[in-house]
Every structure is written in C-alpha cells, then in structure tokens.
C-alpha cells in the first residue's frame, strides 16, 4: 500500500482537514493530503519539532517513548502518531471530529507506514 493510500483512510473521516507523513528529524513533508488553506510545510516543521521535544521529555523522565500526541485547540486539533519506522503520521482536524476514530486510523496508518 502506498503512503498516499494510507492518508486516504484518514482524510475520509468527517472532520479531518488533512493528513501528512513527515520525517521527524528534518520536519519535511514526505506525503500529504490537505484541504486548501492548510500550510503543510508549517504543520510538518512545527509538529516534528514538538514531537521531538516530547520524545526528549519522556526520555528525560525515563518513560517509554510516546506513541501518539493529541493537541486540542478552540478551532481544531492535531494528532500525530509515531510509526515504528520513525516517521510521523499527522492528522489536522476540526473541533468536532470523532477523535477516537481518528486515533484508531492514525495508529493503523502509522503501523503500516514503511
């Protein structure tokens, strides 16, 4: 299954405005499927930076590395899952999205991402 197909499963969920696969070390987009008006480059760079800091924090606390990040804001949210390969799979959502469904699809996509 291609990376683009992995993202299709996410973007089909109502309330998901876009999904990306990102290289966490570089903060660069590898694959994206985004609605108009979303700056994929900015999402990739900023979420990768945040994810890196979260990883550093859990390492410093001697905890296992994080599997999923969920940021909620007034107008929407961002969920990011760490793929076993090291890639980050990110979903950009509206405020009323079914977060549980997005988490399941995101973790599934992360598991399959090469």
């Amino acid at each position, binding site marked *: 299954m291609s990376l683009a197909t992995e993202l299709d499963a996410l973007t089909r969920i109502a309330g998901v405005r876009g999904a990306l696969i990102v290289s966490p*070390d570089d903060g660069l987009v590898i694959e994206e499927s985004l609605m108009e008006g979303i700056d994929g*480059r900015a999402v990739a760079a*900023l979420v*990768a*930076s945040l994810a890196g800091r979260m990883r550093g924090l859990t390492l410093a606390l001697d905890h296992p590395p994080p599997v999923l990040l969920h940021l909620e804001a007034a107008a929407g949210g961002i969920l990011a899952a760490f793929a076993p390969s090291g890639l980050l799979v990110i979903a950009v959502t509206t405020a009323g999205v079914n977060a549980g469904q997005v988490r399941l699809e995101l973790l599934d996509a992360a598991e399959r991402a090469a």
Partner: protein
Amino acid sequence: MRTIEPWVEAPLGAFLTESAARVTLLMTASGQVVAQHGFTRSLDVMAAAALGAGILAATFELAKVMGAPPLDSVVHQGTELGIYLAAFDTPRGRWIGLVVFGPETSIGLVQLFFGRLALDLAHSAPVAEPPRQLLAEDFEGELNASLRALFGR
C-alpha cells in the same frame, strides 16, 4: 546580530529566535553583506558571503544547462551541522540568505521561518532612495561605517 540596514534588524531577530539558527548571513546576489549573526571575524563573513553567492550562482547556471527551472535554494545536511542557502526577492533586489543550523532545530523549521523572513523583509523594506553619485571622498567613510556596523569596530 549586526546589520547595515536598520530595517533588517527586526525581521532577522524574529527569524533567529524562531528558527534557532546558529549563524545567519544576509547578502546581495553579488555577495555584498547586509546583515550577519554568529560570525566573530570579518574575514569569515567575507569568505562565507563570497562562497555562498558563488554556490548559488553555480546552481543557477547548472539549472540553465540542464534546462530546468532556476533553483532557489540549496541544503547541505551534515551530521552535526546543516547549511541552508536560499535566494529571494526584495524591493532592494535579489538577496541571498546563508543559514547554519545544528541538531537543536531542523531544516523544516529553518525553511519555514526563512520563508517568513523573506516576506517580512519585503514588507519592511523602505521605498528605494534615488541613486546618488558616490564621491571618492565619501567612499572610504561609507565603507568604514559599513564595516563598523557589521563587526563593531
């Protein structure tokens, strides 16, 4: 941070804070330095400016030879340091930015905030002054003033 043009200071300051770049050099397409952060020796600045402008000029020519559209940026990624070199248009002509960054940031963040720096500079640039005749007696004074602004001596 040292700048020759005072209006460059605020956008460059914001870029340095947000990108966490270690060294930044802004110059014209011909390699004339406009602002710098992180260099301590003037010789290093001059060499970096000349080499950076040369690399981008070579890249433009290479793209031309290959029949490809002009390439605006070059990234050299090492294990300890990365170098991002990019050209952008300002109301004062085409400028080049050279950014050296470490593992505390990423090329994605540097590219993102460099794009914003280019936009901020385009907005902040004052209306170009009409060209005036440069007199020989002014030349040395202006050169010294520019060197003082860049290196503080």
